[in-house]
């Protein structure tokens, strides 16, 4: 049985669409074309690699500075223990690597990743298993 990436219910839209929803950043801010509040439940932004403007979004925007530990521990992991929740982010590849490992424990996977300017990657992590379908 394949579970990667498997998004269910309203999130299923994202499975086919995530890559297309997030534009290249040559001219626009990375988050500009993520439909606010529709698919992404929260954004995490590493200020170290994305010092620019934060997204104007209905979904919470959670900035942090290099070390993701506290944000993940206090905000993301408790939320990831429950079904649903699609997370968008702009971080370095190092932080994405860490989040990807942590997400896997909660049956979630990176469903889209796109390198931006040097050092920054834009990505989406979504449920990847029926047990946490939103």
């Amino acid at each position, binding site marked *: *049985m394949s579970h990667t990436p498997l998004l269910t219910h309203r999130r299923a839209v994202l499975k086919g669409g995530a890559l297309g929803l997030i534009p290249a950043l040559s001219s626009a801010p990375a988050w500009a074309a993520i439909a606010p509040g529709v698919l992404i439940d929260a954004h995490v932004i590493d200020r170290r690699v994305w010092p620019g403007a934060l997204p104007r979004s209905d979904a919470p925007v959670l900035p942090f500075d290099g*070390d993701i*530990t506290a944000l993940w521990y206090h905000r993301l992991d408790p939320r990831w223990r429950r079904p649903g929740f699609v997370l968008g982010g702009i971080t370095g590849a*190092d932080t994405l690597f860490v989040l990807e490992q942590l997400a896997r*424990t909660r049956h979630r996977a990176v469903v889209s990743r796109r390198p931006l300017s040097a050092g920054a990657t834009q990505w989406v992590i979504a449920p990847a298993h029926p*047990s946490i379908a939103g």
Partner: protein
Amino acid sequence: MTTPPGLTAAVFDDALREIRAAVGDEWVFTTPADTALYRDAYSLFWDEPEERLASAAVAPATVEQVQAVTRACNARGVPLYPISTGRNLGYGGSAPAYSGSVVLDLKRMDRVIEVDERNGSCIVEPGVSYFDMYRHLQSRGSRLWIDVPDPGWGSMIGNALDFGGGYTANPYRNHFEAHCGMEVVLADGEILRTGMGALPGAQTWQQYRYGFGPYLDGLFKQSTLGITTKMGFWLFPQPEAYFTASINLPRYDDLPMLVDTIGELENANIFNGMPGISSPVLFRGGKNPLDFPEIPEGAEMDRLARETGLPCWSARLTFYGPEQVIRAQWAYAKSRFPTASFTEHALVKLPLSPADMERIHKPSFGIPSLEMFAMGARSAHNPNPTDGHFWFSPIIPRTGEGFIAANRIIRQTCQRLDIPVLLFSPPVSSWWRAFILVMAIPVHKDPARNQHLRAAVKELIRVCADHGWGEYRTAPAFHDAVMDTYSYNNHIVRRVNERIKDALDPNGILSVGRYGVWPKRLREQGGRK
């Protein structure tokens, strides 16, 4: 879907059918996309034919399901590779040691079964990470500490079984040493409980490790013999204070006395934290303290020390305990070094204030963290981060002379063999009474570079062995090479391990090839790599 070596697709399908019936269809993973999640991100074989890949993965939720999976595999000779949280980066990640194994992913077994505040102990399942345990203790206002490795995302059980270590006091920082009692599913699906766990109704499973008769727990350290489904650990009662200070000695020749004396103080319990050796003169100018340079000749080092006014050596002692006691211990320690100068670094009262929380090295206070991954990130200082690393960690003699010899010979050998080194530690005393050196060597997603590295590191292993230095733990690429060096009496250690393996796991299904122990059928086929 790939089929494990030596099995037909029909037999493997049949095993998977039985496994699905036991754990549920949605917890059996067979597509390439799913099994790719178990690749070792830091593999030394990345994209090469020898890369160790899973044929499938299974995530059971209970001991009964683990037994059912094991029986299904045992009946058909399907290789099974248990992992807890699978974060063994630098030592194999979540990939099996033998390609084609089914990874038994125990992350769903994540219950903290018990915390006993009075006994200062806990019993956990394999999926309980250090973060999980920390959250559990915090949410209950516990006064107990865990001891954590640098990255806190691993599991208490997985880390201990691979002989991992942390940073707080003895004996807690040696995670296998700090365990008390295990529950293990054997290859035939039977459950073994060790120590007092073997006595039905005993309330002492987490108090007395040894039970009756031979001590079996050691069989499951770095092992191929069982699937650990529960483990008890002793936890550290939160101390009142933490204190760290350094003893500085001016001359090159002072090192043997420094190492001997701090060894004596540690063995006499005058301090209980992890000691550290450094060299202010060699690290002058803010050099990375985790990258110990090659130690120059004595005359040269003394000259540098005279010119700079910096001591040749310093030993940092760490104390956990009541402030009054610590102060007396430190006063006594100082009295043992009449020619030294001293630097007091920090006295931290516990529990931590929010301000202290921001400035401390969290693992030294039993607090899990992932901070070190942000430090290795691309930055002005580190424009080309690597694709990961593996650890090279020989046990060397705990003497000043032993450290100097190992530092020089390993540094020179790395240079001769063109082995890049990201980090070359001072001697580390994670394990009581022993010194290890820990080196991080970068890996790449480039087969040619990794091939060079593998050959060079095998040579480094031989050079170290020629000097009597053996690795305590290593990446799967070197399991056989390191086991080869433990060769006393025609490799009797390996031969005994093989005899035990053949007796307990006659079909050779569990953790095949791990730590250089191969089951009979693969030894006979020359399967040892």
